[in-house]
């Protein structure tokens, strides 16, 4: 039974770890922190795997990951924990897509709460309802936070530098 559960979790982990690490990176802008947040989130999901239904596991993972990111920001990185290995530099250098880096920088200028909403909505491509569930807030809050976040993002990422 334990083996079957672990195999199921292994499949879940293999299919999602990198994607969620990238989502975490979009939120925090730091690969080491993103690795830590994502690893912690999967650890929490594994610890509750027997209670998390397969069809709700993604929603639970998103909630845990978003809360981990927001908690990390609230604590101001006070609780440093060493990860097993220091992540390598991005393959191909810090950026092979300059505009993407401008966008990343602009996104990091958005306050953490609004940034989490933007990442969930537009990077992770979630619906308003799914983002609200991940953040444990109302859909109205998601909409208002989205509007404010986009305003801040557009100010930091003006149209004349967008090449997309």
């Amino acid at each position: 039974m334990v083996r079957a559960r672990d195999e199921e979790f292994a499949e879940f982990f293999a299919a999602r770890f990198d994607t969620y690490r990238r989502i975490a990176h979009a939120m925090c802008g730091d690969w080491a922190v993103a690795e830590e947040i994502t690893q912690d989130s999967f650890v929490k999901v594994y610890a509750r795997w027997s209670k998390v239904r397969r069809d709700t596991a993604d929603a639970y993972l998103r909630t845990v990951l978003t809360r981990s990111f927001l908690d990390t920001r609230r604590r101001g990185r006070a609780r440093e924990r060493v990860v097993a290995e220091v992540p390598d530099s991005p393959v191909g250098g810090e950026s092979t897509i300059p505009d993407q880096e401008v966008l990343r920088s602009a996104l990091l200028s958005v306050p953490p709460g609004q940034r989490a909403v933007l990442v969930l909505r537009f990077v992770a491509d979630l619906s308003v309802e799914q983002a609200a569930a991940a953040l444990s807030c109302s859909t109205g809050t998601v909409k208002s936070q989205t509007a404010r976040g986009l305003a801040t993002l557009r100010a930091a990422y003006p149209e004349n530098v967008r090449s997309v």
Partner: protein
Amino acid sequence: MSVEEQRALHALLVGPAPAPSTTLDLVIRRGRRTRAARVGTSTLAVLLFIGLVGVAITCLRTPSELEVANSRLVGEQVDWPRVPGDGREPSGPQALVTRNGVLVYQCGIPQDLGVATQETSGSFRDALRSALAERGAHVGYWGEDPASRYLIDIPVSVDGDGSASVAVSTGDYQGTAAQEADVLMFAAGNCLPPKRQRLGDGTTAQLYPAVPDPGGIGIVMHALLLRADGQRVLVSVRSGDQPALPISEADLARALTRVASG
């Protein structure tokens, strides 16, 4: 929001990224410990409550009575001095817990003493393995799986069966060894202060009394090695489903002394 803006944001999911360092084994190992700690904490909270209400009232023991009770759990004892309490006390009330049919005292909620942020040196592992084997314990396969470098868990038994184990993890500490040892004096959930000895290479060894294993079904005896260079090594001997530990306190102390002098 324009379609272009949405596409640009969604494109952040692709592009260059460092290779992830997290492995499935690491996540499962940490997840199991998290789950065990959660179950252990819940169980412990109930037990502590019961202990507070009734059982502990009739089972409170003086330090000398605890010493006698503890000696039954750890087998042959080493003659290292027990740290004088100097007014310091366990963080919680005494509770009596049954593990594998054995009554074990516990005080407070045990902390996770393992840090597991560094690879345990091969020479340490080999020396410990040899020392354990010399004491008559059957030491299981000591894997070289890279994912296990940070937390080594070796099956050990006296009869080639059972789920007893010795686990080793390595990390670091700040300040002096004495300060760190004092801070962690009652961290294992122990009612008696630990025994402490300065070993040949300047390492401070702190040997804890056996306590209920919060993540398992049996009892656990921890030894903390605080090296002079700031490295800290935790060796945890677990009984698993066996009523007794696979090696005695004296055996563990001899193994640690040998590792330190080697």
